[in-house]
């Protein structure tokens, strides 16, 4: 286990939940990620890989979104304990 080691999303194994920690993309690309609900604090898990190995489909905030490796490399995640998958928390989680 890699515990709470930060890694890029493309390295996340299938079906192991994680939390987005930061995005390295800027500008329009960053906004596109936000649009899809991919922002720090979001729970994310890889659910399936395309037959040719890329892109990968991720489950995030109730939707399934496919990203190419290039996009996934710009997203950093920290693995989350599997039993908490059910209780997705709100996004940025600044206040409650």
């Amino acid at each position: 286990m890699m515990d709470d080691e930060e890694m890029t999303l493309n390295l996340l194994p299938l079906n192991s939940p994680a939390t987005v920690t930061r995005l390295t993309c800027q500008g329009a690309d960053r906004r596109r990620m936000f649009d899809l609900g991919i922002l720090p604090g979001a729970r994310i898990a890889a659910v399936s890989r395309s037959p040719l190995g890329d892109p990968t489909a991720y489950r995030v905030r109730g939707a399934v979104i496919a990203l190419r490796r290039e996009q996934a490399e710009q997203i950093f995640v920290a693995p989350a304990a599997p039993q908490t998958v059910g209780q997705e928390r709100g996004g940025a989680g600044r206040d409650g």
Partner: protein
Amino acid sequence: MAEVNTQRLLETAERLRAEIGTELHDRLSEAIYADAARIAERAVVRAGEERRLSWDILLDRLLTSRAFGFPIMLLLLTATFWITIAGANVPSALLGQLTQVTLYGWLHQAANAVNAPWWLSGLLIDGVYLAMAWVFSVMLPPMAIFFPLFTLLEDFGYLPRVAFNLDRLFKRAGAHGKQSLTMMMGWGCNAAGVVSTRIIDSPRERLIAILTNNFSICNGRWPTLILMGTIFIGATAPPALASFYAAASVVTVAVLGIVFTLLVSAFLSRTWLRGEASHFSLELPPYRPPRILQTLYTSLIDRTLIVLKRAMIMAAPAGAVIWLISNVTIGGTSVAGHLVALLNPIGLLIGLNGVILLAYIVAIPANEIIIPTILMLTLNLARSSLAQQGVMLEMEDGQIYEVLTRHGGWTLLTAVNLMLFSLLHNPCSTTLLTIWQETRSRRWTAVAALLPLTIGFGATLLTATIARLMGWA
């Protein structure tokens, strides 16, 4: 005056932007999403199972799996065409009988009864009416089966999965992953396919999608493929397998279209349209049970009939033109005869013939009328016992085969190359107009027209040469 002010506005904005800092954008949008998260947290009382319904997951695993993803795509495509071809066979023949024999006979009787001059009844019945009747009987049954089937797959949510499976190939070709969605829209109509490229953000990748959309066989071209597949390819198989052979040949051409889409995309993205790959993300919506009745209704009424209407409207003047060029003579030979003689050398060189090339010129407004045009021209020129000048008699699929092979001199090579050329030629005029509207560029519109045409001549020349060298034709 306005120019000056616009300039000043932009300058002011730029100055202020420098003062405020460049991260304003991120600040604003991050604030919005923090708000959204807070509000959602209050409003969503119960988050439900985070996991999707289990059959949804299972289905995705199957339809996008390493082992089955591609075979299933191929299987679904083949099944779609097999059902289309097997199902359209009988109704097409019945409609052909009804419109080209029964109704056609009545019309001529009526014309005789009122003593209509020969040129008038010829122009209207043997020209306009017959062309429309042909389009009707050749197009209606397959389209009435194909559209609903395809729409069911679309409604179910399969299309984004295809895009998901194919993306890697499109990426290798330097194209956007959503291009496969626009490609599938092109399978209905290329003009619609071109408009659908709006979903691609990057102008460069969008242009690649526009220029290659023509490699998606459209509704005007499916009937040509289906007919050729049925009477030339299917006929080479044992009767039980005939419609399967026919379907397989149509699917082969469709897949070849995908191959050309990828190759030409790769070519464009390495030459005239070089650039960075832009952001790609694709939502895979949950599978939804298609609404069968509604799908049937909308795809029959809205798609099939609209498509058919357009085809008939295009067929009417084309029929008149065909009759005229077959009956107006210069120096003892009809205009059509002269044109065909002119086009024959190059046509035969590429395994087609002058009639087919002339048909493609007549059919620039709409691919739908290719088959009727070819048949009418072949018959008219042959002045066979089946046809007087400009007249066509009863023809079912078997007889089409007779007409083409006996009077037109067709071989298997002609049929195969017609299928190839049907895939690889200029887009119809509607599509070209749409390309111009979307790009506002004459240059790219010209490229869109000439590129596939060049490839078409090259490909058919290649197959014809090989066939000749091998002694097949």
